[in-house]
């Protein structure tokens, strides 16, 4: 099941490269035909290509956010957990703060100020600001508990320096956790972007799943019964979420089974 969704998610992810996205290129409001599988929009866009592009962009945002968030989180978490002392305390308080700050209002705040000028990347950066705190906290506690493990001592007595211990001993353990966190963060980022889009705060020229739903809503697709236009991004979002979610669950199951051995 999981594999099935992964295949969908990633095959679609690689497809958009053959897609030239053009505005007003087809007659508008077509029903699904063999040429336009999902019909066209009120603006004369092919829904299928729009959808593919949207999935691509949403995934891209999700992945960028998850990458930045996870990398920053792992780095800060390791730093805090391994350095100890005042640096740890400072980092911990900052991390806690970011966990406590309500992210959606701040996201709205930042995106509304940048509306018009933001790009996919800036959007992702903004979202990433709130994606690192949680992993950082987890990784820190992981690092803290690992610091006392015997194999860390063995590594040190084998001549490894602190940096090397962190990189070759602790990181591999943190990575498995991070991977599942990474997928979670991807989900969260896509969801946040969709929320912002529905509030009308996503960059106007960004074709994302959220924006696509928002456009369709704006263009009254619900009442003109353009079900494919409004429905396809919704279904895609839901399917992608469920797929990713199952992937996480599957991965975690796999991990625990592996640990159980």
């Amino acid at each position, binding site marked *: 099941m999981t594999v099935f969704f992964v295949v969908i998610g990633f095959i679609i992810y690689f497809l958009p490269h053959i897609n030239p996205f053009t505005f*007003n290129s087809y007659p508008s409001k077509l029903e699904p035909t063999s040429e336009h599988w999902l019909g066209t929009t009120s603006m004369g866009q092919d829904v299928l290509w729009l959808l593919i592009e949207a999935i691509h962009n949403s995934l891209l945002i999700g992945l960028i956010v998850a990458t930045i968030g996870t990398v920053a989180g792992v780095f800060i978490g390791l730093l805090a957990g391994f350095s100890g002392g005042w640096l740890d305390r400072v980092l911990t308080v900052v991390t806690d703060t970011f966990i406590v700050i309500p992210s959606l209002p701040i996201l709205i705040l930042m995106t509304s100020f940048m509306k018009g000028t933001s790009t996919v990347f800036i959007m992702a950066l903004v979202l990433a600001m709130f994606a690192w705190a949680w992993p950082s906290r987890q990784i820190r506690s992981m690092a803290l508990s690992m610091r006392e493990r015997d194999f860390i001592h063995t590594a040190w007595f084998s001549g490894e320096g602190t940096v090397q211990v962190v990189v070759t001993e602790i990181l591999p353990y943190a990575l498995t956790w991070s991977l599942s966190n990474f997928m979670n963060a991807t989900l969260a980022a896509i969801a946040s972007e969709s929320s912002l889009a529905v509030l009308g705060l996503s960059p106007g020229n960004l074709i994302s799943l959220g924006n696509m739903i928002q456009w369709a*809503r*704006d263009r*009254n697709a619900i009442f003109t019964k353009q079900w494919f236009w409004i429905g396809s991004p919704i279904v895609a979002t839901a399917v992608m979420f469920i797929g990713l979610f199952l992937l996480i669950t599957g991965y975690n199951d796999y991990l625990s089974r592996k640990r159980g051995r």
Partner: protein
Amino acid sequence: KGPKNTTTGTETAQTTEKAEAVTDTETGAETETKAEAEPAPSGETTEVGTPRNETLIVECQSPTDTPGQFNSYMQGTTMGFGIHQLMSAMMWEIDTVKGEQFGEVADGMPESNADFTEHTVKIRQGIKWSDGEDLTAGDVVFTVNMIMTNPGITQNAYYNQVFKSVEKVDDYTVKFVTKESFPRLAQRFGVTIWGNDLRIVPEHIYSKQADVTQFKDSAPVVAGPYTVKAYDELGKWVLYERREDWKNSTIGVVTGKEPKAKYVWFRNLGDDTTRQMSLINNEVDILCEVTPEMLEVMTAQNPNIACWYKGFPYATSDDPCSKGLAFSMGKGAPFDNKDFRWGIALAMNFDEISQNIFNGVGRASPFPMLTNTSACQELYVKPLLPWLKDFSLDLGDGTTVKPFDDGYAERIAGVLRDKGYDIPTDHDALIDMFGVGCWKYDPAAAEKLFIKAGLEKKMTAGILMVNLSHST
């Protein structure tokens, strides 16, 4: 179009503050739509507890941030939430179809001296405030002086700039003395398109306030036909009730007709989806700003929904509000540069904008400064056509371009016919429907103009991207 049309109940058309509408091209064609006051079961009540069949529910496009605040001279008061339409007393009103002003509080147009520095205005007799006091010249004089003596009122500076003095001659006569020749007193201080700042307030209430800029006036005493019955503390609705003595209100005195609805409930509805659903389900009677597409959908689901015309273009094009992009030239570079502005004008594909935003409804006009009502088109635009056709722009590289494009009407008619609309073929009818034409879509020329305006060309392809920062 005036606020007082509520007299006829079902013909009401609401407008939003045009000043804001200008900033956003997405607000769509302004097609006012209403559900025919359906004979609602008499037992049914609205959510605010009034009988549904005596309540007119009007949409207001945004909630107010200042609930319970009805003093128009206090900062932040939302006039569009019924204050303007139902309660305000203006000096002069306008009939937008004829383009003629007439007196409301004033009894007729001002009489000015030869150099237009002294203006005598008669005040209508018989208008009473809702608490029974007479509205007299004293109230008018008090209002203007209040504005001029209170720096906290935003219009203060302007009024001081215009007026030397405003005095009461007798109970129903006021003399305005302006600092300079000021022939347009009625236009500037009466209603032309949307309301004006001069809303007469009752002296016997406002003179008692220590600071009128901080006076919320939550239970206002008004000269208009409705008073506030209840309002939402959260700013999402206001309920108005017809005055018992509506005959003594401005409307009663001016027209003698009774406003039909006993209650008027202004409420905010949220996004387009919600608005449509509400209108279809009879949860609202009047919607503002509806796209033709929305209208088609709604009429299909509820046959009682109607607007100006049964078929295309649904809305009258004689709406006195223009839609488009406006730039403040005072905002500084690059908008103060003529070539830059021309560049933007030529970079925009009007056909697409019109199709995508208004479904082709509306009259195109090359001139932004005047609303292209049919009167304006006949009087102003058509006579300028020969000049327009000859007009050419210097592109800065030695070439010129003639920016006027008179083919718009025929083109859009073609597109609309393809979509299945019944569009007349007669050229004059088309010009009346779609206007004489617009500026050309000419990216190449636009590019040259931008370069002329001092912009650097960074893009290689023919697509030009310009970040438009809107200003009011």
